[in-house]
């Protein structure tokens, strides 16, 4: 019976030689502690490395992008000449609309000449060159105003106009007199004019809300481009992704992890899901184009389609992380619930799921972050390009009207020739990150509430 009797020669076992004092570390302890310290140092190094990278990236982004939040404006008095805008003089809106933006050029030139005269600025510039310091957006701004207020024709109205991208660059120090040597878009004389106008207080650099709320503008007028509309596009897409990917992903994981019988079919599904994670995002674009647009006839360039495609792309991420965390809930918890007569479903929803919530939220954070920054699949469903629509007014509009998305917008801007867009691209990235951080914060707070160790 006694196993003990087999211990050698009945002699009382001698205790192992432990190092004498606790305060003195044995060589082995020293070695192990060293390895412990190394291990910990690796951890610290890993975190620090990650955080330093983040810091570098974020400082780069902020450094390059903050300029986008400021813009140079020129305040001008404009005489809305009747003979140019309403030749017939009958204020018929149809007639007024016939004057295209090109027809507003003389008015703008005149306004600039008047300003030069008013402030006593001496310049050799021709009227066209004078107007060259203003954005090309100015004509559209004026035309919109006139169409909205036909009764103002003939009056002199004060406007706040965008300065052209080059002028703005000059004010921000991006453009210098040296750098424009070969530039045919702006001349040193124009810069003299800018200096004079700035001195007169007509031209100033202020915070630019339009960048945050506005829509894209064409390549010819970087100063007018904003990210607001595409931000809404992203928002609607994220809503779709969140509303679909999270419940579907969690549901699928629960089935696979808790209910599915172990057989080839579930193995197939399992392998399939991890494989979907490895499918390049552009392939999801191909799929979206084929299924949602060509087959289901959903509109192109619609955030709804973008959201659906991104949902499919995000699902594997959420499923993989959800499954991993479901797996890590100890079986004793399930037993305890089943033991008091809970059904499997109840055990899962009442106990396992809350315990797995941190992992699920992590998957959601990462999946949504990925979805938020993705451009490639949007390329194929028509959300990348020049989509300068207005801000959607209704939910249906938001989902179905053509729109772009922040990363697509940023990507487009980064490609454009005018360096002024480059600054906006970085500004856009700042906004994207703020968007991301806001989105994450919610999830992180939620996750913290679920975290516990047992």
């Amino acid at each position, binding site marked *: 019976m006694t196993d003990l009797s087999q211990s050698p020669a009945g002699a009382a076992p001698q205790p192992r030689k432990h190092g004498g004092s606790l305060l003195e570390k044995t060589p082995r302890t020293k070695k192990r502690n060293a390895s412990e310290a190394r291990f910990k140092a690796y951890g610290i190094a890993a975190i620090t490395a990650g955080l330093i990278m983040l810091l570098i990236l974020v400082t780069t982004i902020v450094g390059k992008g903050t300029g986008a939040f400021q813009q140079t404006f020129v305040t001008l008095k404009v005489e809305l000449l009747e003979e140019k805008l309403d030749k017939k003089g009958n204020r018929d809106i149809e007639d007024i609309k016939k004057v295209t933006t090109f027809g507003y050029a003389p008015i703008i030139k005149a306004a600039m000449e008047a300003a030069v005269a008013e402030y006593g600025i001496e310049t050799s510039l021709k009227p066209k060159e004078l107007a060259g310091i203003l954005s090309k957006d100015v004509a559209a701004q004026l035309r919109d105003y006139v169409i909205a207020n036909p009764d103002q024709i003939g009056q002199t109205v004060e406007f706040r106009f965008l300065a052209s991208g080059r002028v703005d660059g000059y004010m921000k120090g991006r453009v210098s007199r040296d750098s424009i040597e070969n530039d045919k878009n702006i001349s040193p004389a124009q810069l003299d004019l800018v200096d004079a106008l700035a001195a007169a207080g007509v031209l100033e650099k202020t915070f630019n809300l339009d960048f945050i709320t506005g829509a894209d503008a064409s390549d010819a007028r970087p100063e007018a481009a904003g990210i607001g509309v595409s931000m809404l596009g992203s928002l609607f897409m994220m809503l779709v992704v969140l509303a679909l990917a999270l419940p579907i992903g969690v549901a699928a994981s629960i089935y696979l992890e808790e209910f599915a019988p172990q057989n080839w079919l579930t193995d197939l599904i399992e392998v399939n899901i991890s494989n979907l994670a490895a499918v390049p995002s552009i392939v999801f674009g191909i799929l979206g184009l084929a299924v949602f647009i060509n087959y289901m006839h959903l509109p192109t360039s619609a955030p709804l389609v973008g959201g659906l495609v991104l949902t499919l792309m995000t699902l594997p991420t959420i499923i993989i992380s959800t499954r991993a965390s479901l797996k890590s809930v100890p079986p*004793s918890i399930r037993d305890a619930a089943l033991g008091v007569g809970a059904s499997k479903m109840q055990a899962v929803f009442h106990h396992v799921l809350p315990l797995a919530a941190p992992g699920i939220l992590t998957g959601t954070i990462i999946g949504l972050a990925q979805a938020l920054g993705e451009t490639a699949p949007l390329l194929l469903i028509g959300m990348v390009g020049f989509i300068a629509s207005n801000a959607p007014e209704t939910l249906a509009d938001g989902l179905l009207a053509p729109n772009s998305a922040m990363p697509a917008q940023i990507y487009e801007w980064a490609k454009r020739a005018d360096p002024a867009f480059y600054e906006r691209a970085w500004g856009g990235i700042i906004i994207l990150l703020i968007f991301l951080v806001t989105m994450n914060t919610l999830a992180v707070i939620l996750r913290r509430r679920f975290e516990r160790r047992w």
Partner: protein
Amino acid sequence: MNDMTLMDKTVDTQKIKIAAKDVNVYYGDSHAIKDVNVEIEDKTVTAFIGPSGCGKSTFLRCLNRMNDTIDICRVKGDILLDGEDIYDKRVDPVQLRAKVGMVFQKPNPFPKSIYDNVAYGPRIHGLAKNKAELDEIVEKSLRRGAIWNEVKDRLDAPGTGLSGGQQQRLCIARAVATEPEVLLMDEPCSALDPIATAQVEELIDELRASYSVVIVTHSMQQAARVSQKTAFFHLGNLVEFGPTGQIFTNPEDSRTESYITGRIG
């Protein structure tokens, strides 16, 4: 606490609550329970005794199909509860487990508050109409689990932050809160001091009035004290099953005798 007061026990014959017929259990290839036949009576406390690893827990877990959750575990044979085969396809294990409650060998409180631990069962079974009733159930159960005094001031504290014995009693309270018809208790007093043990034994005795209780224990004294019937398991076999008095005083099988007198383990 005198040792063996066996002969005092009245052994009334009660209706059979659970009948196990030729039950065999396998963990993968290993044969853990071998041809066990046993009849557990209503309004009776049945004790399972036997050396560690002989299959008591395994068999106990068969009685409310908790073995379903172990992938590699296969159960053969019939187990009838009130004459119905609990392994029948049509049987809903959930309903079964609501009838046949369980206290596990290792205390496993939910990582929730003490209150929620106990209230969980009544909640999912709809045993309380309102909060007040639920409070009452919780208090009553905790009292029956002999832990009310220790936790009444910290019902919101997590159940996992209790001491070992407290967790064990919490699990007992949790199990009785759902008022099962049969209560399976796997070493419910292993971590309890004598007083708490006595209280739990009192509870068992009280439960016997209306329910059937099966208790696994390593303490011969305890088996003798609380049970009317005793089953002795050895290496997966049910060696002997009979009135507690008889088993302890006059076992038929030599192995039973050896175990009771402390010669085999």
